[in-house]
């Protein structure tokens, strides 16, 4: 089937090479559009004032952190069942950018929380789950790098990702429940009550921009790790990279 064909580095490498410039330019364009709309066009929020602009970074980053983890877990499942080596290249390529988006979401969340709640860090359900997600990312990355044998590293990492993705909703639910237990006062939800379209459009554009950015980073990292692993194979010399 078609999917199987592009799972081999030999076919994936040139394909990634062709798509890379497209994703790169599209990512740059959408980021500029998002920034322009978010910083210049969107009106300040009647409640939060200008700090609402932090949301254009924080919320898409939080979405990306979960999206990438889910993608990694999906690739892990495929890699374990069909024994495709390329899934591990994809997972290792996505881990760092996923952890970076989580870290970015946490930092911007704290920068946004200071004016709203007066504290740099609030044990809000969403922020706490984001913190735990960062631990899951760091756990995967350290396990994967602690194992020398490439095959064991990819399979052990895949198992951990699958356990993590199954446990993530359970952890989120328990943190959510724990949060309501200890903070009876209804804390303003972090993404604001009802989102006005002038705020929503830049938010969605930034979300798309981050996805395109993620894809370009992953493609670059995958191509360079293929160059590392397959340095001696003939098809690489013929194609002249």
């Amino acid at each position, binding site marked *: 089937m078609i999917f199987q064909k592009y799972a081999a580095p030999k076919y994936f490498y040139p394909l990634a090479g062709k798509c890379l410039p497209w994703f790169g330019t599209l990512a740059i364009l959408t980021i500029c559009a998002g920034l322009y709309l978010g910083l210049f066009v969107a009106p300040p929020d009647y409640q939060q004032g200008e*700090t609402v602009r932090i949301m254009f970074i924080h919320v898409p980053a939080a979405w990306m952190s979960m999206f990438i983890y889910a993608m990694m877990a999906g690739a892990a499942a495929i890699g374990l069942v069909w024994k495709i080596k390329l899934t591990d290249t994809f997972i290792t390529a996505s881990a760092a950018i996923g952890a970076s988006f989580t870290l970015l979401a946490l930092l911007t969340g704290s920068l946004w929380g200071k004016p709203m709640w007066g504290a740099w860090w609030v044990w809000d359900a969403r922020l706490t789950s984001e913190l735990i997600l960062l631990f899951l990312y760091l756990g995967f990355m350290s396990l994967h790098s602690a194992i020398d044998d490439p095959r064991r590293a990819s399979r052990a990492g895949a198992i951990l990702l699958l356990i993590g993705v199954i446990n993530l909703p359970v952890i989120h639910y328990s943190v959510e429940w724990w949060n309501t237990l200890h903070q009876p006062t209804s804390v303003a939800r972090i993404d604001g009550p009802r989102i006005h379209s002038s705020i929503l459009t830049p938010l969605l554009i930034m979300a798309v921009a981050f996805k395109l950015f993620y894809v370009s980073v992953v493609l670059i990292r995958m191509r360079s790790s293929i160059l590392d692993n397959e340095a001696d194979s003939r098809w690489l010399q013929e194609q002249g990279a």
Partner: protein
Amino acid sequence: MNWAEFFNMGGHAFNVWGSYILAFVILGLNIWLPLRKYRAQQRKIRQQHETAS
């Protein structure tokens, strides 16, 4: 467009611009480091080609 007003961000300049700078730095690193390694690999392969041919 009053630039001073724009940069002040209603008194929350630090928070808003801090977030955007953080985003630029963190995401920037995520694209710059792999790109640098990727270019180095390309150069190495191109050199191999010159010596080989």
